[in-house]
């Protein structure tokens, strides 16, 4: 009986008698004694992961495209991607919450799936030790593929979970590791689904327990039903979801994300109090460089170079846009009310009156992966794309990019360059 709690008396179980013939090695089927293991349990978890991981993979690819890596080398942390970038497209600016939603789903769902992944791996662990190591060539290759599947899944989840906590202990930059790791994992995942999905669906349709190597030949006394175990896994997912998802909303909802990196509360109060990715101190911004006397915005284009003081910028037409900050790490703010100069007006200043081109933006920031970033022509042309000088009715604070920062609808957080020093318009 697959669906029902484990039924019947367990003959092999002898409570107070020492099992003299107890198998000592994990390679023997009798070593694994949980009565929960079986094709039904594994199939349910497998189908949840099939749906969940497919969403993770797709949102991951979309997130990768959102950086416009094919636009300019400064946006591309994976220059050797080759055909893996086959699907890239010009990232749109509509709807303005597109990246916020995509990345919120990617990270929040990934964290929520952790208990399901752990339970799935637990449910099939006897197979890791099964002997003989291979019954046929195809079986041997499938087992090698499973190493890529399990190693790949854990590698992706671990690098993701560490990255959102700013714990950069993994060997290299997050972008190439998580991107290429995703493709290695996906290769193994796709073939695993093709080979196993028919059996998984059969297991769920047929309510009787099929004979399977997963079912323990000498099961222990059950301490929970299979249904109970699934509820328990779901409860773990729910707990992680409940303590994470709030980091995508301002106000009281953020307070519910008790353990998420950008949950709990805001770093400040007032108009500039919302979430910060990297503070001015962290980015090494010197207050002397951003002062009224020192700072100049250097805009270069078809007709040459223009240098603008902040008060000169303020004399240009100012516009407002309500846009969120959405980070690759899976946190975001609600819409903030930005005010500043339209990027396409800045392009017009240097000779691009009706045809705003791409722009290359440089920050005062001395180091950091995205202190230089490129925006595509469609992003420059959007009337909501601003070089913001104010937020929520107040001057930008140093931590939010004073004296001026980029804000573009639907763009990943790091492409909204802070402490802008130089903008070069022209085809990249």
């Amino acid at each position, binding site marked *: 009986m697959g669906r029902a709690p484990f039924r019947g008396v367990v003959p092999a179980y002898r409570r107070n008698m020492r099992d003299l013939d107890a198998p000592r090695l994990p390679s023997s089927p009798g070593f694994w004694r949980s009565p929960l293991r079986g094709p039904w349990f594994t199939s349910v978890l497998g189908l949840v992961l099939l749906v969940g991981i497919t969403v993770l993979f797709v949102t991951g690819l979309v997130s990768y495209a959102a950086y416009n890596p094919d636009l300019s080398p400064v946006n591309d942390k*994976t220059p*050797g991607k*080759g*055909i*893996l970038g086959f699907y890239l497209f010009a990232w749109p600016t509509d709807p303005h919450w597109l990246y916020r939603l995509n990345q919120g789903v990617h990270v929040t769902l990934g*964290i929520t799936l952790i*208990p399901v992944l752990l339970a799935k*791996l*637990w449910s099939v662990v006897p197979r*890791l030790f099964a002997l003989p190591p291979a*019954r*046929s*060539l*195809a079986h041997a*290759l*499938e087992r*090698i*593929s499973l*190493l*890529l599947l*399990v*190693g*790949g899944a*854990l590698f992706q989840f671990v690098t993701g979970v*560490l990255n959102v*906590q*700013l*714990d950069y202990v993994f*060997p*290299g930059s997050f972008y*190439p*590791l998580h991107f*290429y*790791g995703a*493709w*290695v994992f*996906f*290769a193994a995942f*796709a*073939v695993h689904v093709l*080979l196993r999905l028919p059996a998984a669906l059969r297991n769920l349709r047929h309510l009787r327990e099929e004979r399977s190597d997963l079912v323990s030949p000498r099961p222990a006394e*059950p*301490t*929970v039903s299979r249904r109970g175990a699934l509820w*328990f896994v779901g*409860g*773990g997912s729910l*707990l*992680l979801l409940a303590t994470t998802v709030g980091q995508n909303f301002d106000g009281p909802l953020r307070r519910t994300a*008790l*353990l998420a*990196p950008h949950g*709990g*509360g805001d770093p400040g109060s007032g108009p500039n109090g919302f*979430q*910060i990715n*990297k*503070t001015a101190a*962290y980015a090494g911004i010197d207050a002397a460089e951003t002062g009224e006397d020192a700072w100049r915005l250097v805009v270069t284009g078809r007709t040459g170079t223009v240098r603008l003081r902040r008060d000169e910028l303020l004399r240009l037409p100012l516009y407002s846009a309500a846009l969120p900050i959405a980070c690759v790490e899976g946190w975001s703010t609600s819409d903030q009310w930005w005010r500043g100069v339209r990027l396409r007006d800045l392009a017009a200043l240097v000779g691009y009156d009706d045809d705003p081109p791409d722009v290359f933006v440089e920050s005062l920031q001395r180091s950091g992966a995205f202190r230089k970033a490129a925006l595509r022509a469609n992003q420059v042309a959007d009337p909501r794309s601003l070089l913001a000088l104010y937020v929520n009715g107040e001057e930008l604070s140093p*931590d939010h990019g004073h004296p001026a920062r980029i804000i573009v609808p639907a763009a990943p957080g790091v492409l909204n360059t802070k402490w802008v020093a130089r903008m070069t318009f022209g085809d990249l």
Partner: protein
Amino acid sequence: MLRLLPRVPIGSPLQLLLLACSFALAAYAGVRLLADDWLGVALWFVGVALLHDLVLLPLYAIADRAAVRGLGAVRRRVGAPPTPSRQWGRVPYVRVPAALSGLLLLVWFPLISGMVERRYRFGTGLPADVFLARWLLITAVLFGGSALLLALRLLRLRRAAKHRPPVVH
């Protein structure tokens, strides 16, 4: 000569084709994954799988078995009825909060342990020393809630026993 070799079963040709296709894609991405620090990345890739299968899983399985045995022993000593349908009656009240608390610790260990405290505080402008306290509070709520549920259940059972007519059948 060939006859002396043992016959190796090949298996399903379709399966072989699919696997070859998968390996080709994995290798294409794999050489790029390993391009910078091949040893480090390979160690991580295999290491996380080994750590999970040979350390984490056995650890929590042993801890769980010990907890179940411990609770079983307590139950027998107190002399609760060993009815099969109720035999796991009290185990979940300890097991579930402990596992959920452990899960949160596992996922958010860098923040809870404070190992990224400096970078986190400096980078985000948020206080970094709150996560341990929050995790402990959640743990307290989980165990407290579980204790409350168990107490209510015991109370209900006792009441039911009192109201039950003394004559059987």
